[in-house]
Each structure stands twice: as C-alpha cells, then as structure tokens.
C-alpha cells in the first residue's frame, strides 16, 4: 500500500478558523464593552456635571434688580464624591462674570438654546469636560439670561477608563480562551462520524466488498456513495477477472487435452520407431505447456480465492485418494509407484476444495516430476494436533537450494536440470496452506534421499 500523503488537517483547519473567528469576536467584544462602558462613564460624568450646574442655576435669584446666587454646597461637593478631580465653575450674567473662574471658557453661542451644552476643552493645562446651563432670571422689570458653567478634569474618568480597559481585556481574553476550547471540542465532535466511517471501513476483511451501511451524516453520504460504487465496480471487475481465468483455463486446457488424446491415439497406431518417438515428444510438449498454462491460471485463481475462500466441509482422506487416483496415469508412465498411507477414519476439514485440490496436486505433481523412473512416492495423511499431509519421494531432493526461497513466485531450484517447470507449484501450495491457516514445510526426505513436502492444516 502506498502511504497516503496528508495535506493539511480538517481538524486543524477547523480549530484555526474557529479560533480566528473567536479572536475577531473577542476583539469586537473588547471594543464594544469598552466603548459602551466608557460612554456610560462619560455619561455619568456629564450627568453629574449637569446636575451640579442645574443646582447652581436653581439657586439663582434676583435681589433689588441684580442677579444673586447662593452657591449650594452640594453643587460642588457632589463633583468631589466620585473622583478627586479639579472643579471649576463660572456664572455669567450679560457677558460679565458674576462669580467663579472668569477665565473659564463659555460656549460661543449660548442664548439660543435652553439645552445643556457639553464640551471638552483645555483649561489651565488640563483637559476638562464642561457643561453650560442657561437660565432666565427675572430681575424685576426685565429678564436676564444667566449662564452657569461647571467644568471638571477627567482624571477620574481616565482611571475608570483604565479599569474598564483592563476588565474588557480580561473579558475578551476569557471569551477567546473559552471559545477556542469549545472550538476544539466542536472540531472533535464534527469529525467523529468521519472517524467512525474510517474505522468501519478499516475494520472489514480484505475481501469484504459489501457496501458500507453505517449511519453517516448527510455531508458524508456522497463519500460513502462513491466508496460503495467504487467497491461495487471493484467487485464486478474481480468477478470478471475470475470468470476470465476460469474461462481461459477451460479454453486452454480443453483443446490441449483433445490434441493430446489425438496424439496418443496416433501414437498407438504408429509402428515406425522414428514416428513414435516424434509423437512422444509431441505429447510431452503438450503436457508441459498444458501444465504451465494450468499452473499460471491456477496461481491467478489461487491469488484471487485466497482473499475470499469458498469453504465447504470436505474429507481430506477422500481428497488425497482422489488426487492420487488422478495422477496415477502420469506416475505410471514413469513406472513410479504411489504409496498412500492413510487410515479410513474421517478427516473432516472446512476449506476451499478447489484450492486444496490444486495445492496437493501440484505437490504430488512435483514429486512425480523430480522422481526417477521406477521409484516410490509415499503420501501420508496423519492427524494429531493438526493434519499433516506428507509427500516423500526418492528423487534428487532440493540439493543446496535455499528452502526459504523456493516457495517464492517463479522461484526454481538449481538442480532441476532439463526438467521444465514454471516455479509456481510450491507457491500455490504455500499460499493455499496459509489461506487455510496452515503452512507448508519443505525438507529432505528423512527416510533416504529425495524431497519431503508437507502441508500442515489446522484441526478446527
């Protein structure tokens, strides 16, 4: 399997994006909290200033045609209650300062409006907030406009502003942290179905190409659908390949078998030694090519079917007997005797009969192939912990071939000499044994020279 290159991570991207949004929102929260609170603080100062100026205006009275004032204690003391800011005031009658700080600036236009006029200005080297309240005072015959200006420095306000900024920062940062933590959680939860899907696909067997039916969120349905359609296509393609192999085996074997039969018939009729020899060569060539083709196709089929065994209950004894019977003619051709050492008691096994047959036939076929004429092959089937199917011959043995390599695909020994072969026989046997949870053991024949190949199958 090729390693999948990870390009980015949905989780990281989700978290980063959510954290980014959280950061923006925190900033907005910070700005809003600060703006609102500062506005409120400024409004508070304005209100107190207005209250102060109004209480002064309320204390205006006229006496003998003059505007008089009894400055209320609370008018100035109230300004001192919330902060230690400097306080200035001025009462103006007809552009003349009646009392207070006569350099305290008055707003330019003042007589046209009865509303409180707030302004921020610089006075005596400090920024002050001032309010001007205009009041009409009747001085006997006429009505005089009196303006009361009260101003206060903004130190207290600045202190409040600093405190608010600190609080707003804390609120913003807290919000950000909480939101980020929650976005981590959200990313985790959002990806949960994806992980579930991945697990459910990963858990299934190699050959399990059934459609995925786990419950998935709507967003994943396209993925699951394309996955399912991909798998069904794959399955169809596999089935097609399998069909092709079966078909190919059939198409190759049948004509070869026909040709061989015809050749034998002719061989039997011929009397000329030269002709007979040529026909034998021909039969041999047919045999070889039919075996090679058969093995190639068998191997392809085995590779396929090991993924999904079509198991059924079989009896190993019956199977061995059947194989020995089938190969008897081939062995007989070389005057080789097959000794079958097998009890009659049942040897039940659950496996793929076609594969097992194929494997065992290949091993026996090898034994016949590599045995000299007039020798004995012993096939022994025993059952203790597991089933042991042993094929021992008196042939050339494996020589100095590497026994661990010999089962490899297209791997042939060094001592095969003129004997043709594809190097697939043991491979097939090994793969089938392993597909059934067993193994293939290769050794020299302990009873004398020759090879000994054993298929070990587990007893269920």
């Amino acid at each position, binding site marked *: 399997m090729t390693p999948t290159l990870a390009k980015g991570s949905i989780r990281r991207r989700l978290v980063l994006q959510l954290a980014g949004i959280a950061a923006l929102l925190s900033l907005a929260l910070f700005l809003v909290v600060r703006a609102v609170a500062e506005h409120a603080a400024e409004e508070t100062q304005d209100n107190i200033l207005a209250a102060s100026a109004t209480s002064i205006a309320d204390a205006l009275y006229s006496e003998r045609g003059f505007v*008089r*004032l*009894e*400055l*209320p*204690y*609370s*008018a*100035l*003391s109230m*300004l*001192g209650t919330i902060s*230690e800011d*400097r*306080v*200035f005031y001025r009462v103006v009658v007809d552009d003349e300062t*009646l*009392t*207070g700080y*006569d*350099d305290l600036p008055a707003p330019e236009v003042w007589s046209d409006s009865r509303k409180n006029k707030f302004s921020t200005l610089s006075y*005596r*080297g*400090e920024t002050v907030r001032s309010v001007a309240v205009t009041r009409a005072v009747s001085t006997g015959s006429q009505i005089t406009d009196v303006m009361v200006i009260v101003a206060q420095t903004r130190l207290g306000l600045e202190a409040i502003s600093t405190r608010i900024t600190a609080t707003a920062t804390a609120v913003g940062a807290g919000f950000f942290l909480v939101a980020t933590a929650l976005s981590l959680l959200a990313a985790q939860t959002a990806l949960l179905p994806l992980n579930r899907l991945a697990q459910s696909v990963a858990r299934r067997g190699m050959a399990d190409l059934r459609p995925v039916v786990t419950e998935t969120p709507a967003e994943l349905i396209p993925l699951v659908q394309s996955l399912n359609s991909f798998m069904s296509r794959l399955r169809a393609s596999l089935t097609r390949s399998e069909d092709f192999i079966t078909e190919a085996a059939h198409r190759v074997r049948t004509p070869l078998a026909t040709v061989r039969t015809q050749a034998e018939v002719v061989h039997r009729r011929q009397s000329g030694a030269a002709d007979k020899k040529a026909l034998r060569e021909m039969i041999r060539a047919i045999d070889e090519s039919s075996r090679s083709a058969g093995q190639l196709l068998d191997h392809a089929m085995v590779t396929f079917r090991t993924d999904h065994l079509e198991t059924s209950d079989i009896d190993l004894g019956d199977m061995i007997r059947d194989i020995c019977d089938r190969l008897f003619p081939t062995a007989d051709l070389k005057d080789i005797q097959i000794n079958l050492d097998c009890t009659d008691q049942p040897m039940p096994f659950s496996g793929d009969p076609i594969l097992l047959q194929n494997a065992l036939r290949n091993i026996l076929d090898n034994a016949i192939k590599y045995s000299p004429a007039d020798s004995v092959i012993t096939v022994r089937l025993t059952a203790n912990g597991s089933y042991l199917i042993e094929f021992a011959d008196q042939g050339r043995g494996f020589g100095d071939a590497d026994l661990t390599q010999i089962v490899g695909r297209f791997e042939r020994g060094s001592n095969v000499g003129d004997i043709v072969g594809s190097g697939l026989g043991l491979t097939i046997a090994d793969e089938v044994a392993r597909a059934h949870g067993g193994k293939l053991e290769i050794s020299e024949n302990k009873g004398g020279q020759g090879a000994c190949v054993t298929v070990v199958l587990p007893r269920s």
Partner: protein
Amino acid sequence: MRHSRFTAILSALLLAATHVCAFEVESAKFYDAPSGGNLIRIVSTADIEVFEPIILAFQKLHPDIDVDYTVASSTEVMNAIYIDGEPFDLAISSAMDLQTKLANDGYARTYRSTATANLPDWAKWRDQLFAFTQEPAVMVVSDEAFKDIPLPTTREDLIDLLRDHPEHFDGRIGTYDVRTSGLGYLFATQDSRNTGSYWRLTELMGRLNTKLYCCSGQMITDIAEGRLAFAYNVLGSYASSRLKDTPGIRIVPFNDFLSVMLRTALIPKTARNPAAGGVMVDFLATLNTRLELNAQTGLPPISNDIGDLSNAMRPIRLGPGLLVFLDRLQRDTFLRSWSNSMEQE
C-alpha cells in the same frame, strides 16, 4: 492676626487681580542642620513655638536638611503661592478651604509615597493635599460660670441653656468674628451645613451681646480671667495646650457633632526642592507614630478611627465642596446673614 485681611485678599484672588504684592511675613526662623546642605523652605500658619518640636525631630531624622520656617497668616500663605509664586517647598495651613483652592487651581504638586498611601482617604486629596493634624472646634467654659448650671452636651442643650439663663450669659459669650477669622469662618460654615440649630444659636448669641474675637488665644485668656462664661468654636488643640497652665477652664466637646479642622500641607508648583518637601510630607503624615511630639506641640495627629460615623468627630471634607464657601457671593450672603444675627441693635 492670622486670618486678617482675609476678605480683601480673597476678593483680590477671585477677581484675579494683577497687582503685585509681596506677602506679609509674621516671623521666620532658620534651622541649621548638623550636616546641612539640603534646604527646605516652609511657609506655615503655625507659630514657631508650636511647630519647633516637629522641625527639631525632623532634623534629628534628616540631619542634612536645613529648615527655613516662615510664619504667615492663612491668607498670606495662600497669597505667597497663588499670587507671588514664592518658591516655598511646603505650604502648611489650617485654612483647608484655601489649601483646597490652591490644589484645585493647579498650584500644588502631586506626591505619592508609602506614608501618604497609608493616610486615610479623608485625610488627603488628589495626592496633593495631605492632612497631618485633626483639630476639633470645641466649647471652652469657665468652671466658675457653670458652678450651678449643668454643662451642655449638644448645641440644642446650649440653646436651651441660653434661653433659660439669659441674664447669666449676657455679654459673657465669646466666639470668632467670622468676618476676620478664616478659621472662624470655616467652622461657622461647617456648622451651618451640619445643623439646623446653628442659625438659632447665632441669633441667640447675638441677642446676648456675644463678644467677637480674632483668635482662640484671647478667648481662652478671657475665660480664665472670668470675663467670659464660655467661648464657642474654639480650636481644641489650642485649648488643650493652654489647659495645663490655665486653671479654671474646661473643654466641652459636643456630642451631636464636632467639626474637625485638618491642618494640611502641600508642595507648591513653584517649589525649588520638592523632594525635600516630600520628605517633610512623609514625616508629617507619620506624626501619629511620634506621640511625644503630640504632647509637645498639642497638635493631635491623624488617627484612622475618627472617620467612622459612630463618632461625633466630623473631619471637614477636603474637596471641591470647600470651594463653595470661598465663592464671593456665597461668602457675602453668609456674612450678611451672620452679621444680621450677631449684631442686632
């Protein structure tokens, strides 16, 4: 004549007079430090005799600081800073209102230290004005005059007493002339804020031909010598310090409320050696750790527990409220009412 020329100067100030007038010094003394070199110039309303122990104790702690101590009336102290811009490093005054005005109008420097941080909130303003004594206004009575009469404990008691025994007290009452005494004016205005009985009391005192004084000292002398039965709103600290060597007088603290004057110090903007001013502020702010000085000067240091309301002591609140009674119109109105009550012919 600590508070004389009060009216004139005040009017001048409020009209932002441009004339140059050198301020009037009452007395001055130079205290050479053992290893001097660093000079602090102090302008103060407290008499040299009163303040000297503090200066000597200060120099014991800071042997490198020479002290140039100038005494002037409260208006002159204000004058020196506000108009003349004299380079004093510390201005000490009993006139809380004038000191507040200096700070409010930007003539004081901001100063912060551990010592000032430990002062209770009511004893400082803007980190520019620092109180270091708390001196209540009390009634001082002659033992002889109250031989047969119960001592009043509240102002209402006093009013009843004056109503019941007009002949006994006629012409034998003393109080500050608030027109000339800044301190008297401060106490009177605070009284008028604190109690509704103040104007009734003033009215009664006026009817009983109350004698008016410029200063506490003369009032106490007159009580001791039998010319007065009692004096109203005498500076408690002066009275206490006179108690030892003046037989026959007694201090009666009212228990409805006691206006408490805070003597304050500030470092003027014009200071040449503000650091030394700060050192002195620290020293004054920690006077309550030097009780032996209290005994010598008769100046009670700031104590943290007078702020609570269960106490009759009402420290006069520093802050813009004090500016109200400096207002020209307000002052005119107040003095007019006061004069009308006090001088009924």
